[in-house]
């Protein structure tokens, strides 16, 4: 697949825009997935994923064709995600207690979902819980966990993508795993 991508990128470098559509098609799900897991919100994820592809296109001339394109693309995407997370105003958390109420938090403000068949609710709930717990991780742990267990990158690839030493990546994965274990142990 990398060879196909490289061929398309060479075409893009010559200025052929249509060749880029195929590159987007190949990576769109993966990039979207990273963004979604990092941001926890489809709308924002789409925004950032598109931005990532746009940046990659504009800066394609700075991409070293000898390297893996996915690594480069994921780096752009993860950087954009982190920027977005940092820029976001610390909006109210669902866990926060609502002022003037006694022990009521934002969860109780959300109307219960419309009825779905029992099984759907269960699997949907589990998905939501896991995503919520991933979202709670500090972003540096969240990033490595997403790349490792959702994108299934190797430790080396993660180290390349994030431009971090392998040792740092390992430490972050260990801590991320421990943090998630604490959060998910009663699920």
């Amino acid at each position, binding site marked *: 697949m990398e060879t196909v991508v490289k061929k398309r990128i060479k075409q893009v470098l*010559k*200025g*052929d*825009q*249509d060749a*880029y*559509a195929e590159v*987007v*098609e190949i990576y*769109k*799900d993966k*990039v*979207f*997935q990273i963004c*979604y*897991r990092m941001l926890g919100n*489809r709308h924002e994820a*789409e925004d950032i*994923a*598109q931005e990532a*592809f*746009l940046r990659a*296109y*504009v800066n394609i001339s700075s991409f070293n064709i000898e390297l893996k394109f996915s690594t480069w693309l994921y780096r752009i995407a993860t950087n954009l995600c982190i920027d977005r997370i940092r820029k976001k105003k610390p909006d109210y958390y669902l866990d926060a207690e609502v002022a003037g109420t006694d022990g009521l938090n934002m969860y109780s403000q959300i109307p219960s979902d419309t009825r779905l068949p029992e099984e759907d609710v269960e699997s949907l709930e*589990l*998905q939501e819980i*896991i*995503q919520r717990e*991933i979202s709670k991780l500090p972003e540096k742990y969240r990033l490595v*966990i997403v790349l490792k*267990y*959702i994108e299934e990158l190797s*430790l080396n690839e993660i180290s390349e993508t994030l431009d971090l030493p392998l040792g740092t990546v*390992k430490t972050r*994965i*260990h801590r991320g*795993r*421990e943090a*998630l*274990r604490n959060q*998910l*142990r009663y*699920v």
Partner: protein
Amino acid sequence: MKCPAEIILYMHEYLDEEISAEHEKELRAHLQNCKECQNHFHELKKTIALVQSTSHIQAPDHFTASVMAKLPKERHKVGVQRWFRQHPLLTAASLFLILMMGSLISSWDQDHQLSVSKQPNLVVQNDKVIVPEGEVVKGDVVVKNGKLEIHGEIDGDVTVINGEVINGEQYMASAGKVTGEIEEVNAIFEWIWFHIKNASKEIINVFDADDKDTDKEK
């Protein structure tokens, strides 16, 4: 019971698939005896399984289209190049036409020398070709870059390129007589048209000849 700190580290080494045989042995031995660590290890593995189980979500429809729509406009040149790549036949045809036009136009410009088809009884004087009185010229007569004066008779077609037919009154009058058609080619487009006609005639002739050959074979 206080467990050695490195046991947790070994667990992570194991999960990263980077554990040495020695450490793995140690880990296994410890896990068999320590309920607490067993539990810890189990929870870690469950966490990973849960994270991995989150169904792989897909990008929304039209994702690619909306990315493509946002890209800066490409240079016009590339669009033209791609058009040529996608329409090779048209490209070849137009290239052929351009080259052919070029060669025809240059040949029109270049040859200003008088040339006449080879019939023995045609008389050439300066830029004039004369069909003498009383003579009958057999076959088609072609005159290039010169005038043709007809006093006698031509048994065939007459073509004059870049010149004229002098015949007193228009062609058929007086003594001059032409049995076939008379054609004057002067403007450049007529010249090209004449060439194309000629070429297609030749092609048809070739096919006819083939047909005749095959007929003969039968």
